[in-house]
């Protein structure tokens, strides 16, 4: 009960802090602008053909997916780095809360804001629903994939932020981590196709594959979601340890 209240208190403050900082507004604006441009480009020759609608949905998500790479690092870079730099971490951690409460609250705030940004795509789908009959199945599975992948990238961002007192360093480290995940796909091309076991591992790790082959098609492979979720949990655990690390020196 106390734990829940503490996590909630931290979460509320962090979400409020997002809306009070210009970074969040810049990200939202860019996200809407770019996706709006993508949407209007792909709908400019729109004739209401069902295949066309699927194409618009896939393009919209496909382009938006690139946002995964910088989005989480930008959203999470402030979380701990700023508190360390200004020293407010000292006030936070001398309140009757544990490191786990703080880390979880901050992570969930980033996740909530991340989901909010992705929710800004919903109006586009609503427009498609008015113009034709989009298949809501793939839209929902892709959204699920995006939310779970966000758990992973946001947790990675939290860990990066817990490591440093410099926001830029945090963002760069988190971005590098995300790029590493992304390059798994490219690494597949370098490894001989008959090394099936290696290929299978890489396939399991590569989130672009999960989206292209699974979520976009309207199916939900729970293994992928579990992969994101469990990796995220480990990363948050490491973030808690990094916060406690000041006590070991």
């Amino acid at each position, binding site marked *: 009960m106390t734990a829940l209240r503490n996590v909630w208190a931290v979460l509320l403050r962090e979400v409020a802090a997002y809306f009070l900082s210009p970074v969040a507004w810049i990200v939202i604006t860019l996200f809407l602008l770019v996706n709006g441009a993508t949407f209007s480009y792909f709908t400019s020759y729109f004739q209401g053909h069902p295949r066309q609608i699927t194409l618009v949905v896939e393009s919209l998500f496909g382009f938006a997916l690139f946002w995964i790479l910088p989005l989480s690092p930008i959203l999470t870079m402030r979380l701990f780095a700023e508190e360390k730099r200004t020293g407010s971490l000292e006030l*936070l951690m001398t309140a009757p809360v544990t490191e786990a409460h703080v880390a979880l609250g901050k992570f969930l705030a980033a996740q909530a804001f991340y989901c909010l940004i992705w929710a800004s795509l919903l109006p586009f789908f609503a427009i498609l629903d008015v113009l034709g009959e989009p298949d809501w199945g793939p839209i929902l599975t892709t959204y699920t994939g995006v939310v779970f992948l966000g758990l992973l990238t946001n947790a990675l961002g939290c860990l990066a932020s817990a490591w440093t007192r410099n926001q830029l360093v945090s963002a760069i480290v988190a971005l590098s981590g995300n790029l590493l995940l992304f390059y798994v796909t490219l690494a597949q091309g370098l490894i001989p196709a008959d090394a099936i076991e290696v290929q299978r591992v890489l396939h399991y790790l590569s989130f672009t594959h999960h989206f292209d082959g699974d979520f976009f098609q309207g199916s939900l492979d729970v293994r992928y979601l579990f992969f994101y979720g469990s990796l995220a949990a480990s990363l948050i655990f490491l973030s808690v340890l990094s916060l406690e690390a*000041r006590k070991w020196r």
Partner: protein
Amino acid sequence: MIEVQDLSKSFGPVRALDRVSFTVEEGQILGFLGPNGAGKSTTMRILTGFLPGDGGTVRVAGHDVAKESLQVRRATGYLPEGVPLYPEMRVGEYLRFRARLKGLQRSRKTELIARALESTGVADVERRVIGTLSRGYRQRVGLADALLAEPKVLILDEPTVGLDPEQVRQFRHLLREVGRDRTVILSTHILSEVELVCSHVAIIHRGRIVARDTASSIRRRFGGLERVVAEVAGPLKEVRAALGKDPRVARVSAAAGDTYHRFTLEPAGGEDLRETVFKVVRDGGWLLRELRRESVSLEDAFVDIIGGASGRSPGVEEAR
């Protein structure tokens, strides 16, 4: 209320605290005094559970800091050095956040926040963004936060640094008010602050407690008693020798001037040395321009205590 026993702490090869022991009884206001880098902030961080000590025990409000950190934090209000508040939040928002974090009951929250705002005099800036407040106001908001959960123990790290003289005066007044029914430990390197506010003093230097007593007895113990300052026109060495002859004079120091030299005499006991000075000057046929008593301040005591050790200890206070 606060018991520190043989507390040690090292940051790598740097020994920040070396078997520090002191106690603060309920209702006392302890001034924790020392030059920069002496270990004040480190001690306070250990008291509040932000950092653990390497050895020794610390008990605050009856709880062991190492084992019952959360209970200690519930019983303590802490104002860290530099008052790191969230600049983007409004004062009221910030205090509501802190109240939630400190687990204040919903029914009492509004009342306690109002009381904290009131007692620290920040009610008029409740709707202001913290980042736009002056240093003095931010300090008070920090104090309001520390007082929020009505803690029995108040730990304030350099609470008056960066304030202008008027703000310092107000802050001291505020401290005396809130310290009436609380145990307070405040660190500072400004001596006058301790003299004005604190009932007790602990002086820390290079990680060791070098003196620990009431403010007045420290002054007595280390500063001697009342000194006598005299300006005399005459041959400096001769006057000095003549003044030093009296057994009641413990020490004579002299500063040369053009015609008049300034002599400072420290008594061996509690005697008034002014008569002695007058007699010596009269017997020598010299001229006397000034003769006054000077009571020793805590500042002199402080310089006396740590003055022997030259240089400063490494800047462990900067370590986080």
